[in-house]
Each structure stands twice: as structure tokens, then as C-alpha cells.
């Protein structure tokens, strides 16, 4: 008989999961219908039944760093079939939200970002920075003449904010989070007997990431969901539009600093076409996702918490302000175009600066978990 393990429930952990959209977790009575109906759970040690009792017992160490929590794609098949309305899909989502904060560095930001009381503060930070910058360079007014955003906020100054954000802040903060995360899931997967491979070899792990990419790009896990299959298209739209915008941003960065071609660029420019197409896709995807969230699936399934909604609103804000900046610029409405651009910059800042602390962090954590699952041979490589 295996050695008994100490178990010490953490009441505050239970309470926190409840605020993160897992309010029904205590309803579970362990029938394991969820594990049976889950289309993507592995055959051995399937989730989410065991995660549900761990959540009920407040066993934080069994959930934070649990690989399986990240393999879950919130299909909600489990929530739909749950005879007790315990919504395992939402509970695991709450655990992921909690985990993001748990791995976050600095940890105060990890607490601040998911806390609905401080949204204004998070917005106030970039607003303050930009206002300070603009007043320092004497640009705190709407420029005359042909609308050119660089006239209002010189590109150099924009990049003085964003380049360190992208090259220093994100790698540093997210790097620490990722390091903790990887160590944790590896340790726990080995301890729980989920990992067939007991070591952690970086080159092999990178190969596993490569083998995971097709799954992600094709959304082949999402496509296995039955209950939540209407999320498949919008999620793929949003993912690819972000990829498109990432490409666009890098191209224009190169154009500006290396090729020395400043904007605005022609609408017929292929990169510009990609940018506009991505923006439209992002807009459609964001609205679609929001409407999916609002859909009545019974028992409040998939309604999401502040943590989920803050990302949705951020993305929508990002694309709406971006699109309107362009449209008002083309419509020669400087009084609208410049403030819109300012707002857009605020949203972009938020997206970047809070990336490791917001729900968007799942982009990395889930990818790593899926890759680790293949690396540790819990799941086969496709």
C-alpha cells in the first residue's frame, strides 16, 4: 500500500476559485460523468473528475501546476452532461485563471490584473505614461493639417514605450512565470505518474512544441468539442488575426527603421491589406466570441468571470479603436482620429504589458502544457 499523503484543505483557495467562475465546484458528487464525456481527455487518469474533488477539498498543490488543467479546452461537454450542475469546464477555467496569477511575477500584478476593482488603475497607467510623454515633448494637442499620427505622437516616442515592453518587460516577467510553470508541471506530472518520460530535455521539448503547433493552428482539439463547437471558428479567427497583426507590426517596424519608409502606407500595400484583413477578422472574431459567451447554455455554463471578460473587452477595444483610428483618419476627422489613436495605444499597451497576467497568457501556458503532454508521452504527437 502506498504511503499516505498529507492533505490540508485550503479554504481560501476554494473561495477564490468560486470568485473566478468556479462557483459551482462544491456541487460535484464525483460520478465521473465529466471524465467519460470529455472528448479530449486522455484515457489514462482522465480529467476533470479528480480535479473537481481536489478543488472541493481546496488542494491547491494538486491543481496549480496540474498539466491536465491546461489540456482542458473548456469544451463544456462536461458541464452540459453534469447531473449536478457543477460545471467542471468552468471550474477548470477558474483554476487556470488562478494559476496564471500564481505563476505571475511580480506577484502583485498577478493579483491586480484579475481583480475587477482595479480595471481603472490598469488603464490609468498607460494613460498617465502617454500623457506625461506627450506633455514632455510638447505634443499634448491635436496637430493641424493632413492627419498623420506621427505628428501627434512621434513613432520614436511610441517605440520608446513599446520596444522595451516587448523586448524587456514581457520576456522578463513572462519568462519567470514560464520557468516556474514548466518546473511545476514537470514535477507534478512525474509525481502523479502522468509522465512516461521523467527528465526534462530542452531540445526534445522544443521538438514537442513543433509537433504541437499543427494541433494548435488547426484547432484540432477545439474541433473535437461538441457542446462548445461554435467557439471553434471565432477562436481560430482571433488567433490568426493576432498572428497577422504580429507579422504586420514586425514588417512595418522593419520598414520604418531599416528601410526608412515612414507611414501611413497605401491601402494597396500587401502588408496593409493583411493588416486590414486581420483587423476585420479580429473584429468579427471578438464579437462572435462575446455573443457565444452570452449564449444561454443552461445552468450558467460558460458565462465566464471578470478575468475572461476583461480579455474579451480588451480585444474588442483594441480592434475597435484601431479600426476607428484608421477610418477617422481616412475621413479627415482629426478631432476624432487623434483621441482614437491615443485610446488604441492605451489598449495596445494593456495587451502587451499585462500579457503574462491576463487570460491571454494561456496562449503560452496552454501551448507549453500541450507540448509537455506530448513530450511526456501522455498524449501522442499527431
Amino acid at each position, binding site marked *: 500500500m502506498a504511503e499516505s499523503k498529507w492533505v490540508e484543505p485550503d479554504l481560501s483557495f476554494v473561495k477564490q476559485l468560486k470568485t473566478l467562475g468556479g462557483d459551482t465546484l462544491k456541487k460535484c458528487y464525483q460520478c465521473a460523468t465529466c471524465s467519460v464525456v470529455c472528448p479530449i481527455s486522455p484515457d489514462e487518469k482522465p480529467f476533470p473528475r479528480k480535479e473537481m*474533488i481536489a478543488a472541493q477539498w481546496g488542494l491547491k498543490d494538486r491543481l496549480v501546476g496540474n498539466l491536465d488543467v491546461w489540456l482542458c479546452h473548456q469544451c463544456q461537454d462536461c458541464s452540459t452532461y453534469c447531473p449536478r450542475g457543477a460545471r467542471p469546464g468552468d471550474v477548470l477555467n477558474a483554476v487556470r485563471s488562478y494559476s496564471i496569477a500564481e505563476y505571475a511575477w511580480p506577484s502583485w500584478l498577478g493579483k491586480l490584473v484579475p481583480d475587477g476593482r482595479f480595471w481603472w488603475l490598469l488603464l490609468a497607467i498607460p494613460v498617465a505614461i502617454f500623457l506625461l510623454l506627450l506633455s514632455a515633448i510638447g505634443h499634448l494637442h491635436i496637430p493641424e493639417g493632413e492627419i498623420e499620427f506621427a505628428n501627434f505622437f512621434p513613432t520614436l516616442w511610441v517605440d520608446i514605450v513599446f520596444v522595451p515592453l516587448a523586448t524587456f518587460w514581457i520576456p522578463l516577467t513572462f519568462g519567470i512565470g514560464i520557468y516556474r510553470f514548466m518546473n511545476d508541471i514537470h514535477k507534478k506530472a512525474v509525481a502523479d505518474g502522468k509522465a512516461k518520460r521523467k527528465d526534462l530535455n530542452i531540445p526534445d521539448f522544443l521538438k514537442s512544441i513543433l509537433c504541437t503547433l499543427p494541433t494548435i493552428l488547426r484547432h484540432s482539439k477545439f474541433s473535437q468539442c461538441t457542446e462548445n463547437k461554435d467557439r471553434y471558428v471565432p477562436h481560430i479567427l482571433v488567433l490568426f488575426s493576432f498572428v497577422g497583426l504580429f507579422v504586420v507590426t514586425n514588417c512595418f517596424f522593419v520598414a520604418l527603421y531599416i528601410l526608412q519608409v515612414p507611414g501611413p502606407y497605401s491601402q494597396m500595400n500587401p502588408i496593409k491589406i493583411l493588416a486590414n484583413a486581420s483587423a476585420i477578422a479580429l473584429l468579427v472574431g471578438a464579437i462572435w466570441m462575446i455573443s457565444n459567451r452570452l449564449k444561454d447554455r443552461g445552468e450558467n455554463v460558460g458565462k465566464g468571470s471578470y478575468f475572461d471578460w476583461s480579455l474579451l473587452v480588451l480585444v474588442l477595444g483594441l480592434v475597435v479603436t484601431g479600426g476607428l483610428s484608421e477610418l477617422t483618419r481616412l475621413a479627415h476627422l482629426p478631432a476624432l482620429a487623434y483621441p482614437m489613436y491615443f485610446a488604441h495605444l492605451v489598449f495596445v499597451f494593456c495587451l502587451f504589458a499585462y500579457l503574462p497576467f491576463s487570460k491571454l497568457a494561456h496562449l503560452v501556458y496552454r501551448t507549453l502544457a500541450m507540448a509537455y503532454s506530448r513530450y511526456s508521452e501522455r498524449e501522442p504527437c499527431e
Partner: protein
Amino acid sequence: MEKKLGVYICKGCGLGEALDIEKLEKKVPPKVKIRKVHPILCSPEGVDLIKNDMENEGVNTVVIAACSRRVLWDVFDFRPAITERVNLREGVVWSHKPREDAMPEEGPQVDEWIQEMAQDYLRMGIAGAEKIEPTEPYKPEEEINKRIMVMGGGVTGLSAALEVAKAGHEAVVIEKETKVGGFATKMRKQTPWAYPYEDLQEPVIEQIVKEAEANPKITIRTETEVARVFGAPGLYDVSFKAPGTESKWDIPAPVEAAEGAEAPPQPPGADEATPDNPANILAKDPEAERFGAIILATGWKPYELKKEAEEPAEAEGEAPKEAEGEAPKEEEPTYEHLGFGAIPDVVTNVAFEEMAGQGKILRLSDGKPAGSVAFVQCPGQGSDADFPYASSITSMVALKQAKYVREDNPDAKAYIFYQHMRTLGQNEYFYKSIQQDEGIFLTKGDVVSVSQNGDGLVLEANDTLLGENIKVAVDMVVLGTGMVPVTRDDPILNLAYRQGPGFKDLDLFDGYADSNFICFPYETRRTGIYVAGCVHRALGIQECREDATGAALKAIQCLESANRGVAVHPRSWDMTFPDFFFQRCTQCKRCTEECPFGALDDDEKGTPLTNPTRCRRCGICMGACPERIVNFSDYSIDSIGSMVKAIDVPEDDEEKLRVLILACENDAYPALDICGLNRLSYNAHVRIIPVRCLGSVNVVWIKDALSKGMDGILMVGCKFGDDYQCHFIKGSELADIRMDKIGEALVSLALEKERVQQIQIAIDEYDKLPGMIAEFMEVIHGVGPNPFKGF
């Protein structure tokens, strides 16, 4: 009474088409002058026809050849005239499909076999009716007392008393403690009984006590115990005493029959039986108080966990007592691995409830508040059985007490380790609401050990839902022990009955006061004594109150029935009672011994003493009597015997074998009727006679049938054994024993044992009956015709 028979044959419901009614009428014996055929006998015209004959022709015994006696009995109610029904519809026409290839070439298209069946039944009905006597209800010389004694002053007892009082009767509550209220007064809270069934509720006991004490029809006697209950329903004489004291009216301990003894030994003191010698159970206490019926609500006591420190010598001291009874009890399990007895902070749920009722939950070891408590529902050790006498109430109590822990301290933790979480019915809502508490942790699991760990305790459990073996640190451990019905160890009632002071065969029910949950929840094997509450099964407070209502109404029904001279249950219309022809009694005591209800006592010579108000009219005494001296006015050795003899047994016809079916009228006979209703066909060579209970079948009827030349006898009755369905508890079982003995007698007469068989059936298995009958017919065909045919 001079009998004047009238025979009335109905042609309705297909009888006229399937039978040759003209020919049937001719089979009525010539001495019966009044014989009439009517197209629809149950119509007003048909009923008027009979009433007219009764008025103008002096008909006082009516034989109706139409449908089953189980239907339209209100239409054919001609009391005080005797009515006998001949079941041609369900029993003949509806349950027998005519053989199309066997129709006569001329005359009415009637199957000969079916016609013969109808003719036999008509003859049998007339023969039986001739032997039936009118019934006079039994009226005791003394007036029936209408007060009800309630034993036990807990929730159930007081609720029963209140119900009795509300119905206008007087109740006397007997409680051995100094005050009433029972364990409920020690509780902190109650589990919910009203919508939304989620939150704990304040105990209602205080209010019940107040109401009972204020009710002028209720007398409460505390510090009182029953020494002796003498008499019968309506006429109970009860002697009281102070608890723990001895009284000269204490019932003498029963003496069990020695192995192999012919007759049971006399109880002590019976030799010197004088009416005032208390050692004789037939002696009556002149100072006793009279009651009409008794409600037993003495409840439960906590299951005593054996502590590891207990010396085995103590058990030895009790050994002789056990040896007196049946098999020695299984060894009581110990719970050393749970630390009970050794660790002060390991307590039972009862001790925990008392502590919670008095205030905060504190550790017994150091008086500190308990920050975490584990509730253990199953002692584990490789078995998933709960503690002895645990039930759904134990589960509910664990959930409730977990809530206490949380009420006392918002940071406290309560763990429940169970193998079975039984929250029946609406209680599931309570379970759900308890689950919602963040600080209550539930898991199925096998608790391996509880041990001291520094200041606190550590509990280890295997095979938990958490997927591995776990241990938790707790301040206290509460063991979910069960509720033992007090009737397990004590007769309680102290009845002055020849069959003993308590209920019989309670080991079948682990000591719970016996009853048939589904059919007769409040009845016991002692008429006039009704059980309610936890003596009956583990119940919650609200369930006890409901149970009390049932028992109270039953007790009142008993008084009213006794007053009218009818049986209480289950033959609640029956005015007949067994009539003993004592001149021919041989004092064999078979009836006294076999009566499942202890209705018969006996005098010093062993002659039965009847107690008609205890009697259920099952006729088991009639079936038992080798001298055939026990009869009912409308159901006698002679009346059934005459019916058997009225069957026409063809001689030298290999095909037309005749089989007598004696069908219990509680399940088997209705099931046969249902076969008819569903047009299920069964063999047409059987002749069915309904009997009150297979236990009432006297062996002489079997002899009558065999000497008449019948080829086999099939007895169809209720299931017997541990989960019996017999309405008279022991009837079908006794019949089985008797038939086994008759089998031996048959063999000595060179008759095959297989000719007499007994089968068991429940009413819902009616569809199996045709097959079972066919199977028996095959057996009879196998052994061939009765060699005594024609003698």
C-alpha cells in the same frame, strides 16, 4: 336456522356464450327448488329478482353463479342472509380458451372441459353454502376500554399521544426517565423537513412536550415502567412499577422448550396456578389499570462500541444468558484502529450531539475548541459495511454535525469519510446544501487508522476519491454509530402471553419490532400493539411524528374493531372467530404454539384459552388441529371438505385428471382472477378453492381429495422465509412443514409424494401462474392417475 337455498345463474359477461347454461342449471341438485337464470344478474332487475325471492319465498342462503367474489360484493350484499359466490367468470370462462377442435358437432358450441369446470364449481358452491352458518360477532362480557397506553415519551410517543387525543381518545404516556422528550431534548438542531430542505432547524421537541402536557386527554407518567400486560385488545390490564425495581407482577422469564421435548414446559408457577399467584402468567393483578390498545414507541439506544480496554471476563459473565436464546450472537467487532476508548477525542456521534446541544464543540482532552473534526461513517478494515445499526439517519446526522463544526467556527474544517451516503428523498437537498459549505469535505474512503499526533489526531484513509491514500490532521474524530432498537435486548412489553413476553422472531429483523414495511407498517405480531418510531426502524424526528400518527390511528382502529366484534387486520370486515369444540380437545397445544399472533393461552391442563380480540381469523389453528375441533361459522373443516367432495371426478379417463388447487385468498386467488381479467388460460382440469391462508389448510382436506380420487393437490400461497410475504406471517411456512409431513404419509400409502405440492407466488406474478399450473399437471401426468380412483 332452517336453510332455504336459492341458486342464481348469470348469463352476462360472456357466460351465456361460453357455457351451456341450460345444462348447467340442470346440475343444481333437485332439493334446491329455487334456481333462476338471469341475463345480467348484477343489474337492478337481477338484484330485485333475488330480493324478491328472499322476501316472498324465504330464501336465506343465496348462491350466485356469476363473477368472482372479489368484485361486486357490494351489489350482492344480502346480509344477514348467507351469500356464496360461484366464480364462473374470472375462474372459468375468462381464464379458459375453448378448444376449437373439440367443439361438439351439434348443440351449443361449448367446450366440454369448460362446461364440466363450471358444473363442478356450481356444485361446490352449493355444497359449501349448505355448511355455512350465520355469524354472530364476538362481544366480550366486559366493556371494551378505549384508552390507549403509549410506551415511551420521546418524540414518537408524545406525537402518538397527541394524535390519539386529537382523535378524541385518552392516552397515557409511560416514560421511564424523569422527564419526557427523549434524546431529541439533547439535540442542538434538527435536519430540515420542510422546503427548501436545506437549513438546520430548531428542535420541535419543546413544543411537542408543551402541547402534550397541556392536553387534558393526555396523562404523562414519568419514572414508570410496565411490569405486566395482561389480557387482550380492548381489555388489557397493565401493572406498573418504578424503573429498575422489582415487582411481584414482573412477568416470569419464559422457559424455552428443551431439545426433543414433546410439549413445551410449563412456565414457572403454572402448577400452582391460582388467580392471584403472580408467578402464573394467567394471574391478573387486581390493581392493574385497564387499556384498550398499546402504542410501543420506546425508541432506540446508541450502539455501544466495544472499547479495546474492555475485559473479556465481562463478556463471559453474559454468556449463559445468550446460551438460553438461539444461536450465540456473533462476536461484537472492536474498533481499536479508530482509537475509540484509548483516545479521548474519538467520540461517538451521540456524545458529539450531546456536547453540541450543550454549547460549543470542545476537545475532551484539553477543552480547546475543535478546529477540525473528522466524521467516520464506516469502520473500514477491508469491509465497506457501516457501523452496526447505521442507517440513512446516521448519514444525515454526520452532515448535520459537520454543519455544527462550521457554525461554531468559520475557519473550521469538517471531513466526512463514508462508504455510503444515504440521503433519501428530499434529504438530498440537505446533502446538496451541506456540500456547498467550503469547509466541509466529503469523500468515500476506507478509514485505516486514527492515532494521536502530538497535540492532535491524524486520520489515515485508503481508496479515497482523491485517488490515493491520504492522511489529515484533525482535532476530533466522530464515529457514526447506529441506533439500536430497544426491542433487540428487552421484551419491553412484558406480555402475559403463553408465547412469551415480547415479539417473536425479531432476529429476522435485527431486533427491530417486526412489521411488514410495505403492507402493514404499524402492525406487529401482537394484535392491539402498534409500533412507531425508532423501535421500528431508524427515523428522523419528522418521520417519527408521521410514524406516530399511523400507529395512533391503527390503535384507534383496533379499539373500534374490537368494539364491533370484527377482526382488526387484515380481515378487517370479519366477524367470525374460531370456535373450539373443547370436549374433544386432546391438549396437544399445537394451536397454542402455532398461532403466529399468540392469540391462544392455555390453562394448567393445556386446554387452549381463546382471546378473540387478539385473533386475526387466519385459521392457522384450524389447519393445525389434528382433532379438527376448530371451525369458523363460515369457514369450517366441513364446509371446505364438502366442497372438495362435491367435485365430480371422472373415472378411467387418463386425460381428465382432476387437481385440487387450494389458493390463498390474499395473493394467489386474486392472481388467478387477474389471469382471468387478462384472458390468460390455464388448465381446465383444476378445481380451485380459496382458503383464508395456506396455514388454515387442514390435512383432512388433502385426504378427502385423494380418497375422492383426485390426482393431485396444489397449494398456492405466499412466499415464506426471511422475507416472507404471508399476510399471517407464518401460514405458508407452516403449511409447507405440514405438507412435508403429509408427503411421508402418502408414501406409506403407496401414493407418490409429488401429488401434493406447494408453490409460492406474489400477486404481481399472476402471469406465471398458468405456467406453474401446467408444470404441476405435467408432474401429475407423469405419476399417472390416482390409484384410489373409483373406490
